[in-house]
């Protein structure tokens, strides 16, 4: 098994026509010829920018704690036109859930998608972004890159040049979707995922979107992703992103939600996989009385390095944001959480909160917690908290006196640690999946 995996990795990494060279990009570009001219122009422009921009290094403040010197971009290549024998990993979030639609891709190539007819009848658009582009050119053109800054760094530019196999969800004004929609992005060993998720909820629309990323087989891979969530006034979105890549995958992503007046987003991130993750998760509250709840559950093992940079941007008055990230660290893993609450001048009556708790389960793990506040309005309430702690021997001893084994006691305490964030996740299947995934890991490592 290990041998096979290694072979596959080596094969993938030494195959011809690798790397993000002019040659491989031109070949990729040829496969996108059917796309509208405006998009092709954007891709070319982004490619130029990608070539000019330097690879981030630990000299950059944002990357100071995230060392990517062992990451070799040239071992990967732009997405191919099609995949042979698509085998998708079994989705985790679908247990006992009736979905209104589902969309899946492998190695950034759309594989399958469907939408319940009664939703399509109401004007909902959902499915492969690549495939829906032709029919919904104007819609995509209007909203694409509204939230994401494609010039932010080299990975953002590369994503804008090569995005492929993504998903589009458009919910018209006032339409309420009860059933969750599901998106699966999978990757083979040595593969890439450049999936772009574009979600547009018109005024008063409501939806629940469960998205998961997973490896179809063990081995390395490159995820260079983008997520844009656009909520018009009064819209409501529950969005779950479960990141479950193999622990050899490189994971880079820019994710942003823009919430207008009276809109409300509940955004839950489950970060379990990848060898190294560098994610920018941003929420901008741009209209009065907009609300955001952000939940993060992180569990790391081995030598995983997960770096999540969150940003709560209060651009309008009377908005509320509440962020809770909880991480448990085992072995030699490293979590970086860097959060910022930014309150613009005039964003009075802002109520913003952020909290990060880390549970250290190993003597060799490392947790960096960097909350931040930048406030330019006076009539606000902004607070943050951060803690780092360990499983208290006294608690374990107490549980043991009650007849539990040491392992059981530890598991119980870790579960209790995450309970606070589980309590906020209103979707049962999500709660169960995260709980089980964490439970499995504790069993393996205590």
């Amino acid at each position, binding site marked *: 098994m290990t041998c096979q995996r290694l072979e596959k990795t080596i094969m993938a990494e030494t195959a011809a026509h690798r790397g993000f060279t002019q040659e491989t990009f031109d070949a990729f570009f040829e496969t996108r010829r059917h796309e509208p001219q405006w998009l092709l122009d954007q891709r070319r422009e982004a490619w130029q920018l990608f070539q000019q921009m330097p690879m981030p290094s630990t000299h950059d403040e944002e990357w100071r704690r995230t060392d990517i010197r062992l990451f070799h971009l040239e071992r990967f290549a732009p997405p191919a036109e099609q995949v042979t024998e698509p085998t998708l990993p079994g989705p985790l979030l679908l247990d006992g859930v009736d979905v209104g639609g589902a969309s899946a891709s492998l190695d950034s190539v759309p594989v399958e998608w469907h939408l319940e007819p009664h939703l399509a009848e109401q004007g909902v658009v959902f499915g492969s972004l690549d495939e829906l582009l032709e029919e919904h050119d104007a819609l995509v053109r209007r909203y694409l890159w509204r939230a994401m800054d494609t010039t932010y760094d080299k990975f953002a530019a590369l994503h804008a040049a090569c995005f492929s196999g993504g998903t589009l969800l458009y919910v018209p004004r006032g339409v309420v979707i009860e059933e969750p929609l599901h998106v699966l992005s999978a990757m083979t060993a040595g593969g890439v995922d450049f999936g772009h998720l574009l979600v547009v909820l018109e005024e008063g629309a409501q939806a629940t979107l469960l998205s998961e990323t997973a490896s179809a087989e063990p081995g390395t891979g490159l995820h260079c992703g983008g997520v844009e969530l656009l909520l018009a006034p009064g819209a409501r979105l529950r969005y779950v992103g479960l990141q479950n890549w193999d622990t050899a995958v490189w994971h880079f992503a820019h994710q942003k939600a823009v919430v207008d007046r009276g809109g409300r987003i509940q955004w839950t991130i489950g970060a379990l996989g990848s060898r190294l993750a560098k994610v920018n998760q941003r929420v901008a509250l741009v209209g009065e009385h907009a609300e955001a709840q952000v939940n993060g559950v992180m569990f790391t093992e081995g030598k995983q390095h997960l770096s999540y940079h969150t940003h709560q941007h209060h651009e309008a008055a009377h908005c509320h944001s509440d962020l809770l990230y909880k991480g448990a660290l085992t072995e030699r893993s490293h979590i970086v959480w860097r959060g910022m609450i930014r309150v613009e001048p005039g964003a009075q009556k802002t109520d913003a909160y952020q909290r990060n708790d880390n549970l250290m389960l190993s003597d060799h793990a490392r*947790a960096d917690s960097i909350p931040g*506040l930048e406030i330019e309005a006076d009539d606000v309430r902004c607070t*943050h908290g951060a803690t780092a702690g360990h499983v208290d021997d006294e608690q374990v001893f107490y549980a043991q006196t009650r007849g539990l084994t040491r392992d059981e006691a530890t598991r119980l305490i870790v579960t209790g640690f995450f309970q606070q964030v589980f309590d906020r996740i209103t979707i049962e299947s999500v709660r169960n999946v995260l709980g089980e995934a964490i439970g499995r890991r504790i069993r393996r490592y205590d």
Partner: protein
Amino acid sequence: MATDVNQTAGHDIGEINKYDFHTEERYVFKSRKGLDEEIVRQISEMKQEPDWMREFRLEALRIFESKPTPTWGGDIDLDFQDIYYYIKPSDRQGRTWEEVPEEIKRTFDKLGIPEAEKKFLAGVKAQYESEVVYGSLREDLEKQGVIFTDTDTAVREHPELVRQYLGTVIPSSDNKFAALNSAVWSGGSFIYVPKGVKVEFPLQAYFRINAENMGQFERTLIVVDEGAQIHYVEGCTAPMYSTESLHSAVVEIIVKKHGRCRYTTIQNWANNIYNLVTKRAVAYEGAFMEWIDGNLGSRLTMKYPAVYLLEPGARGEILSIAFASSGQHQDAGAKVVHCAPETKSRIVSKSISKNGGRSSYRGLVKVEHGAKHATSNVVCDALILDPESRSDTYPYIEVEERDVSIGHEASVSRIGEEQLFYLMSRGLSEPEASTMIVNGFIEPLVKELPMEYAIEMNRLIELQMEGSVG
């Protein structure tokens, strides 16, 4: 001898005018503006320093020139060639105030230093521009072997101690401004407290910048030997000019086994001073280091007093207060590094932003691998008094050890309307009520100051608050 003590025109930005006067310049020596090897050699020559110190300076100059100006923190808009790096105000140091040149003595009289000395200080150093012009130490302390002198004198009289410790806590290569200080340093205090000696009354240093475009670079080194104890207080002021001056000090403190050191700063520089200071202490087994750091003045302060807890049982506490008004940016904070088991730290930061001022807390708590049972608690509270002002909090927490307990809390708010209403219903005017609330807000810090300073601090806050509406 006739002297001119000029009160400069009051600037309408609410700073405290009491310190805004300047004295006619009558200097023994003033270097030309700018910084290069020649200036550094000149300073070293003026001071008749040994070769090793001259080499230390020249090496530091090379490091300074090779490092870029930091781009984080505040905006540093300084022309390093438009500064006087060395001004010698007097050719000798007085042991009594009568020996201090009349116009300089008057300056310190106005600042109330001789008076405070009589009342409650065990020793005083007064620095004017680049040199310490007055120094005293109670005789009984001298007899017990306590050394309290300016650092220049220490280089001459205690070279073995200076060489042993100088630059060991903050090497020249630490940052650009530490390098600058190492190249051109002058004045500052050198304190050595022998084993077991407990100095009960505070030692005080007072730093005054008088000249325009002056750079003051004092270098302070404090060694607290095993079981010894000291409280050191420094105050800083300068008059207001239309162009910028620079204060860039380096303060190194070594607190040995079971020693205690408390270092209190009340900085009330004029609003055109860049105050870019590196302060760091190391604490050994069972030692206790406290920084009490008050920042009221300056245009930009970047200062993060640090404690490295090197051995088991060491403790560090940092209390920081910042008050930023119009045209001011206080980028203040604290750093604690836990390098050993059973170490404890506490950071309390209070900041107030008013009239478009910006105050930032920037801090680091780091727990190194192996520092088992380290505990740290950080609380940052900020008050914003109007919509033009800004408050930032950037705490860094890095944990490399499992068996720890780390907590951090921060909040930003404005004066509660209910609190104001309650106080006003008791007959206070709105400014009075606001001042009272602000005083209450910083109370945990003020109560740690020596009595006389606590009163002064409250008075300063009142002056800062004058005319403000919550």
